[in-house]
């Protein structure tokens, strides 16, 4: 639940009963909204594939989920910001560094927005980016392996909400502060009174450069801004390629009871930022170097190991001095979504408390800037005149507009939280042409390719904030509710409900044809350069380094080498480095050992993963394979003997009857 304040009350008081009980333009009950051929349109026969991947934020689960469309079937949950004991993500020695931050190990985050990589503004199927809102981070997921390859922490930030939206060629991902905070000249967060918000609190937006080939991220520059709440953002397209747009609320700069105090002004702002100009200023040395601390975590496919590096510097640009990089546009009222249409000419603001949807014109923005058509300044930053930049307003579209997606046929689809509906309108004429109810209280919505220059259209998916009675009840805590609508005709048609995990915020959908042909099946064992790999059973071994015992172990259907280990003593730390020797698709092996204080390992073909195990008592302890691998899977087990501290049991290992003495130390 994102809008826990005002909206929830309004929703409960007005929207739900009206959807459920009142007659009129809304259907009597949800069932009557579904037409006869809906089942046919979402049925994907056994063994057939879905047409689209739906990459969906896992919200407060911290993960990303992957569904098929139109079936709504869940394929996978990709661990990103949260530890996942099922695969060992964030538990294995190789992946623990991925969750490192300047605050130390942070094993959870609140993941909000998916951004799929684009080239020339169109999906290229290479990477998915997602933001961590709580401890500001951006993650990059590799769409060949469906694994998180990189996580970068954002310094000078708090509440990384307007993120990780991209420029057209994936030059940059952005980040912005939803929660401004005190920032002094040294960029540290000084000890000042909270009520000094207006004097001391600042916001920033950050541009994270992305390497064209490797996807590797780095913080290129940051822009220092007034202490607003930066909410959502979108990159320009085509003519507006060089620009980025951010919605800002709490321009009242309230620091308490924002529900009331940040809802005072009739208009807040949408910020237009020229990132190309910023680049030039950075190149010309106009930025200030700032000392910061942030973690940059990279997973290396060759060594199958993540490293975390602490970085210490960013470059800050100040628009008070660099006058032509940032402009504010008045936007009614507490804007949330800030969405750019496929042509790049129109920017739609969605004022959560507004009775209209303002649509801004990029060409008018350019003209107003050239003519210096300003109504004033805020904190030294020019504010453009509303009428000078407005294409027009969609009048009385609904209550509580949040987000807008596009179908590429000249129509926009806006989600309305309070009135619980999707409204379709014509971008040029600003006329509402259709509306459908959602069940209940929609947040984000997604059209395949909807934020790109080339929407694929066909469907719109509603990600709802309230589930209530849509599924069999499961106590007070319910699954999340998504809905699929057919938009191929003039009228939107409800086809399907499907449950989702976490609280799904934003999602994107992409044709399967852009992903499936390059989906990784196995990791080649020859290319595995994990320092503890066993390339074949002959390389399996056990060796001691002080109190650390390393077990370089192999798995293949269906045995471990070694499977009998002796000579471990109390006080030792045991590292099981398990290599899966299989080279066939979908033959993972699992590894679990009794009393492990972390998790299991799930090791893909050709991969090496490491589990640390600290024995807490003397005795013989079993380990086994957790993933049913063959007819003899139940035979896939082994023993490790733990002797008392100071005993002289020799360190040995074996499989079958051959006992190998270890070389004592490496």
């Amino acid at each position: 639940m994102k809008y826990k304040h005002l909206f929830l009350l309004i929703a409960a008081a007005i929207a739900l009963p009206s959807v459920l009980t009142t007659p009129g333009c809304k259907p009597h009950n949800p069932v009557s909204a579904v037409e006869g051929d809906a089942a046919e349109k979402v049925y994907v026969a056994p063994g057939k594939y879905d047409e689209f991947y739906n990459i969906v934020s896992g919200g407060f689960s911290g993960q990303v989920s992957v569904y098929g469309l139109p079936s709504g079937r869940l394929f996978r949950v990709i661990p990103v910001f949260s530890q996942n004991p099922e695969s060992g993500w964030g538990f294995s020695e190789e992946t623990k560094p991925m969750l490192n931050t300047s605050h130390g190990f942070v094993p959870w985050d609140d993941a909000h927005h998916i951004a799929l990589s684009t080239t020339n503004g169109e999906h290229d199927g290479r990477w998915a980016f997602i933001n961590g809102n709580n401890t500001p981070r951006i993650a990059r997921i590799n769409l060949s392996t469906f694994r998180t390859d990189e996580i970068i922490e954002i310094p000078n930030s708090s509440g990384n909400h307007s993120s990780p939206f991209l420029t057209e060629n994936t030059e940059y991902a952005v980040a912005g502060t939803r929660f401004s905070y005190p920032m002094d000249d040294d960029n540290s967060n000084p000890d000042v009174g909270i009520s000094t918000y207006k004097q001391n609190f600042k916001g920033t937006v950050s541009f994270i450069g992305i390497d064209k080939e490797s996807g590797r991220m780095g913080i290129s520059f940051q822009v220092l801004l007034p202490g607003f709440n930066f909410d959502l953002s979108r990159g320009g397209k085509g003519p507006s390629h060089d620009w980025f747009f951010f919605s800002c609320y709490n321009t009242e700069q309230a620091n308490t009871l924002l529900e009331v105090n940040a809802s005072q002004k009739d208009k807040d702002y949408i910020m237009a930022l020229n990132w190309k100009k910023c680049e030039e200023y950075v190149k010309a040395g106009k930025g200030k170097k700032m000392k910061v601390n942030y973690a940059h975590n990279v997973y290396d496919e060759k060594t199958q190991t993540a490293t975390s590096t602490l970085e210490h510097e960013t470059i800050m640009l100040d628009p008070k001095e660099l006058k032509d990089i940032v402009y504010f546009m008045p936007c009614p009222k507490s804007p949330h979504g800030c969405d750019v249409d496929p042509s790049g000419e129109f920017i739609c603001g969605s004022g959560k408390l507004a009775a209209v949807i303002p649509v801004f014109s990029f060409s008018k923005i350019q003209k107003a800037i050239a003519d210096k058509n300003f109504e004033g300044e805020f904190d030294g930053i020019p504010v453009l005149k509303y009428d000078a930049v407005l294409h027009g307003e969609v009048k009385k579209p609904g209550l509580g507009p949040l987000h807008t997606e596009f179908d590429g046929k000249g129509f926009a689809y806006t989600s309305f939280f309070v009135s619980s509906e999707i409204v379709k309108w014509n971008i040029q004429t600003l006329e509402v042409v259709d509306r459908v109810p959602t069940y209940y209280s929609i947040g984000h919505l997604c059209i395949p390719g909807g934020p790109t220059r080339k929407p694929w259209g066909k469907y719109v998916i509603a990600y709802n904030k309230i589930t209530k009675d849509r599924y069999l009840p499961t106590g007070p805590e319910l699954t999340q509710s998504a809905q699929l609508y057919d938009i191929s005709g003039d009228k939107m048609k409800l086809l399907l409900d499907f449950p989702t995990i976490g609280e799904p915020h934003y999602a994107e959908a992409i044709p399967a044809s852009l992903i499936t042909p390059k989906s990784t099946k196995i990791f080649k064992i020859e290319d595995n350069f994990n320092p503890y790999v066993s390339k074949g059973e002959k390389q399996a071994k056990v060796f001691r380094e002080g109190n650390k015992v390393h077990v370089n172990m192999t798995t293949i259907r269906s045995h471990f080498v070694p499977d009998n280990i002796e000579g471990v003593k109390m006080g030792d730390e045991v590292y099981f480095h398990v290599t899966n020797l299989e080279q066939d698709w979908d033959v993972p092996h699992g590894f679990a050992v009794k009393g492990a204080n972390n998790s299991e390992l799930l090791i893909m073909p050709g991969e090496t993963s490491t589990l640390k195990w600290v024995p807490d008592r003397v005795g013989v302890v079993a380990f086994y394979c957790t993933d049913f691998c063959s007819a003899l899977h139940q035979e896939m087990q082994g023993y490790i003997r733990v002797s008392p501290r100071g005993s002289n049991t020799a360190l040995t290992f074996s499989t079958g009857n051959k006992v190998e003495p270890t070389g004592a130390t490496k």
Partner: protein
Amino acid sequence: MQSNMFGKTTFIAAVLMLAVFACTSKKEADDAAKKSPSPTDLASAQPEVHGTEVKSIELTTPLNKDWVTTGRATYDLKCQACHKLTDEKLVGPGWLGVTKRREPVWIINMITNVEMMLEKDPEAQKLLELCLVRMPNQNLTQDDARKIIEFMRSNDGVK
């Protein structure tokens, strides 16, 4: 070497897709859907090495020493976990005498095209009944497999 088979599956997939579109009578079938690969496409269009049937291979003497060395290295990495070099069965049969018991084409197809063999070949099926573990596809090329055969011949005493 895979072009034949791939061509056929693509053709079948195309026919299937036409049929699907015909019965749902979609006027504007999306580009996306047209390009969307079928399960058979996906299974064969992957970089994973996966077999077409090998019809014949040529054996020569004396053995190619380099191949024996490379074959041995591949054995250590990908085969040794299940096959001993004696006649003792581990997960699969021991290799001693294998080049005398089996035709070289049979061996190479077991290595590079095990799914086909387990489906069609009675001898392969008998072995599955005996061992109860499907021989894994270890992602070996025909070239890798040929070198393994050279190593097997050397293990069987061929000079």
